[in-house]
Every structure is written in C-alpha cells, then in structure tokens.
C-alpha cells in the first residue's frame, strides 16, 4: 500500500460546525488531492496541491478550503459543515500530475 493515512476515519458532526480532515503521506509525492465519493457521482475532485502552499480548485470546491504547509500533509477544511457535505472523502497522491494517483483509506463524514 502507498504510504497514505487519513484521519479521522469516521466523523459525525452537526450542521454549522467546522471540520478538518487530514491526509498524511510518507512517499514524498509532489501532488496531493482531495476527492469526495457519492452514489451516482463517482469520485469528484475538490481541491489539489502541486507543492507546499500551492493549491488549486477542483470541480466541487465550494464550501471547502485546503492547506499544505508541509510536503507530507494536506488538510481539508469545511468551514461550516452542511448536510450536503455528508460523503466519503478520499485523499490521493501522485508524483506528477499525469501519473497514477494512489488513494488513502477514506474518511466517512456524516453531517447531521
């Protein structure tokens, strides 16, 4: 398995609360990604990073922010969680943007 961990693995929170998910890699890959996975939609890109402090939006970035202060860590923040953000969130890494992406185990987030 690629050296990717996500924390927490499960979280239940209430609408309006802030939530931060963490992705940690030990592969020293340049690119890191956050996806959400929902029935009927497959994997959708939220944000990605191409280096420390370098990030860009994906197709479903509204309501999410990210930060990358170290190569190994990529944080996803929901400033004020909504029920529509209930989903399974996956982090992925790749060495180059055109390369295979390797995924973490996922975080199941429920917003009540």
């Amino acid at each position, binding site marked *: 398995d690629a050296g990717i961990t996500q924390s927490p693995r499960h979280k239940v929170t209430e609408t309006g609360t802030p939530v931060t998910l963490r992705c940690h890699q030990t592969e020293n890959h340049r690119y890191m990604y956050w996806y959400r996975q929902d029935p*009927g939609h*497959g994997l959708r*890109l939220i944000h990605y990073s191409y280096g420390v402090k370098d990030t*860009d939006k994906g197709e479903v970035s509204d309501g999410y922010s990210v930060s990358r202060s170290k190569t190994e860590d990529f944080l996803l923040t929901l400033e004020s969680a909504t029920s529509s953000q209930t989903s399974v969130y996956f982090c992925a890494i790749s060495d180059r943007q055109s390369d295979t*992406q390797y*995924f973490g185990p*996922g975080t199941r987030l429920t917003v009540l």
Partner: protein
Amino acid sequence: GESVGLHLPTLSVQEGDNSIINCAYSNSASDYFIWYKQESGKGPQFIIDIRSNMDKRQGQRVTVLLNKTVKHLSLQIAATQPGDSAVYFCAENREKGGSEKLVFGKGTKLTVNP
C-alpha cells in the same frame, strides 16, 4: 462502465470464469488510462494502466484493452476469484485549462459467485 442514477452497472460471474468490464471515455485527446478496484469500505486500489500509444497491456491475471477508434477501454480478469468482487472503475487523464486531471467513471460492481 457508466452508471445511470444511483445504480451501478453490475456484472455477476461464476468463480473461475473470465470477467470483462467495459468503460467508454469521451475525450479523444486523453492519453493515459487507469483501472482501479474498490472493495467495500476501502479506498480505490490501482490495478493496471495503459498509455494511448498501446492497444493492450497485461498484468497478473488482468489485461487492459484500448480501442481509440471507438474510445473504449476494457478490463479482462482471468479465472475470476471471490476476492475479485469489488467495484471497478476506469479513469482517463484529460487535459483541461492547461492542466491535466484524472476523470473517473462511476464504476461497475463485480460479484463473483462461488
């Protein structure tokens, strides 16, 4: 490999049979394709990839075929085993807005019957 609504396409096979999972892609400029396997409760796992300068690539018990003329990708699994039961989806590397992105299909659920 594309789903309609909330329901994934499904494929049910007997243990020991060969499985073929299909995927259509939309961008003729896509030059890199990947197949992933996702077991219940786990993250997607890389199976095999292929670049557009190839028509076929083989791995251990798996073969990927690429037909650029009709923009079709298939994954063949030989001698399917119960451990192969999972959702399989393809991804294409697509250039958009000056950067490259992986675009994922919604998947096909494979069930292997003992």
